[in-house]
């Protein structure tokens, strides 16, 4: 009951946020540059990564198969809808469905090979990285995808059918709706027979097989569903950023960003990925704003190699670091958080909170 009230109030706040994102109150309490559309952008990223985290949660959390290649499914979704739109003028909304189909198919293909050849644990993780890397290299080297130049989505102005909007509010609502919808799917899975099968597979695959669960089928359903849903997020990303290029999307770094919030919040829980995204995304965005980086390492090295006095070199280097050095502050922080969470609360924040403050079940 408490949870239901909390969710309804939270959702109401989020639904009305675009209405007062530029109000005096928000301007008064938020730091400069974090109001209006910038604020909506942060929330939109929270929703998008909450969405992707939830997609990963189906396979990596509930079914317990550590995929480190989810960026590949983002890529399939993004490229399918964008190519259909740019070449045939097909609405990205339909492209999104096509993208889901193709990324689901790709997920099925990865899973089919991996599970039939009995890859588990680290071997499955490695195979997912290898498939993702192969996809990235393929997209880079075939012509119709634009290769390393990527795809620029032509602007047509405010147009729902073209999935394009000139202000951020519509994107904000779409991302919110996607996150809520996928959470509903995960909630349904967690209570369904399929969810219990996944739970059994995660706990002990041999025992699950022994009591008659078709473990390969269960894992395949999890992979396909997870991949297809992740692909829809890819289409959203392509339409929101309006420019996609393989080296930005299909990277191990993106796969890890997708996983991180789920692990932090609590994998194999319904609200863990959402909580994780709400806690980590703002921190990362704040770090990106405060420490933009972009300093020149070549200049630093030249300065080091010069004959200037040591004190001068030291000052110059501190100056370089104080503006964020060469960048990477946000991901550095993620690394620290990931290590600390794994060591101290491997089940995530939400289960930890529940065990401390929740009612005993």
């Amino acid at each position, binding site marked *: 009951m408490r949870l239901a009230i909390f969710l309804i109030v939270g959702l109401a706040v989020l639904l009305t946020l675009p209405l007062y994102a530029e109000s005096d109150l928000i301007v008064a309490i938020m730091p400069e540059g974090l109001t209006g559309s910038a604020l909506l952008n942060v929330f939109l990223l929270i929703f998008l990564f909450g969405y992707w985290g939830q997609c990963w949660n189906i396979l990596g959390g509930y079914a317990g198969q550590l995929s480190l290649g989810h960026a590949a499914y983002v890529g399939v979704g993004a490229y399918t809808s964008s190519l259909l739109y740019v070449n045939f003028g097909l609405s990205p909304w339909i492209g999104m469905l096509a993208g889901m189909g193709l990324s689901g198919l790709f997920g099925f293909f990865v899973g089919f090979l991996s599970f039939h050849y009995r890859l588990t644990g680290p*071997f499955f993780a490695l195979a997912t990285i290898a498939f993702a890397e*192969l996809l990235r290299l393929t997209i880079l080297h075939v012509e119709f995808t634009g290769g390393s130049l990527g795809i620029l989505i032509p602007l047509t102005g405010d147009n729902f059918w073209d999935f394009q909007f000139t202000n951020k509010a519509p994107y904000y609502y779409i991302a919110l709706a996607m996150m809520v919808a996928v959470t509903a799917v995960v909630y349904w899975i967690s209570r369904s027979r399929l969810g219990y099968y996944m739970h059994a597979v995660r706990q002990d695959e041999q025992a699950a097989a022994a009591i008659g669960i078709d473990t390969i089928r269960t894992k395949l359903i999890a992979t396909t569903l997870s991949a297809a849903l992740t692909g829809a997020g890819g289409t959203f990303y392509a339409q929101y950023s309006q420019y996609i290029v393989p080296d930005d999307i299909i990277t191990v770094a993106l796969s890890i960003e997708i996983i991180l919030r789920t692990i932090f919040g609590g994998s194999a829980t319904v609200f863990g990925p959402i909580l994780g995204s709400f806690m980590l995304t703002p921190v990362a965005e704040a770090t990106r704003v405060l420490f933009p980086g972009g300093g020149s390492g070549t200049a630093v090295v030249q300065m*080091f190699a010069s004959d200037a006095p040591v004190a001068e070199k030291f000052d110059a280097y501190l100056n370089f670091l104080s503006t964020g*050095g*060469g960048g990477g502050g946000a991901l*550095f922080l993620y*690394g620290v958080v990931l290590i600390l969470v794994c060591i101290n609360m491997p089940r995530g924040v939400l289960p930890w909170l529940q065990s401390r403050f929740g009612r005993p079940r």
Partner: protein
Amino acid sequence: MSTLVAQAIVSGLLIGGVFALIALGLTLIFGVMKIINFAHGDFLMLGMYFAFFLSVMAGVNPYISALLSLPLFFALGWVIQARLIRPVLDAPENIQILVTVGISLVLQNAALFLFSPDFQSLRLSYGAQTFSVAGVAVSYVRLIACVVSLSTSVGVFLFLSRTDTGKALRACAEQQTGAMVVGIDVGRMYKIAFGLGTACVALAGVLMTPFFYIAPQVGLPFTLIAFVTVVLGGLGSVPGALVGGLIIGVVESLGEILLPSPSMKQMATFSVFLLILLVRPQGLLGGRMT
């Protein structure tokens, strides 16, 4: 065409020797601790920056840095094992992997923060010099890297097969409970294995600085290559790492000249990887450590 192929095979074998040393470090850690270290390539990156900055700031020759790097990175590996890996040894497999992923993120982005994403390279007066054998050009610095890597690998092999500590490490790899029963300090062996594995990969990094670009993200492809090599040779097998390293070196090098674009060489590597992973996951020489 035939000299081109011969050239590619020679270049492949030279870089393959370095791959072997990188893979040896990974296989040592896996063999003893059954942990896959996703931060492996990032220690290579650290080794490269170590040699680069010593050379730029103090004029130290990279081959002297190579000697200095061994105790330093052994100690670093030891500390990381004791502080970060040991607490999760009993945790689920996924958590162990994610800790090493976290270490990788930290190292990579610390380097990005401290040194920026700019590509650096170390220029030595003899860095580009070659000699030719039957029309095939051989670079001195690559030859040195290969020879030093292979002799280090042989040294590690002898250490594992001849010394008491080496035998204790192998005992841990084969039967942990048994090793404990006969009085081997398994916790200490873990630290030695992680330290040794880290020192191997960092040494490989130092040896590569005279002919390879240096950047914070340079590690990831090598982590993947090390996995490929190790899976090819058999996880935990030292001779497997050597053979696997040489094979992958040649595959990459041939891929570079035979595929339509040189940057497609990685596709050849990953295809071999998936093929081996799927068809023969125990590797070509799978099984025992030595």
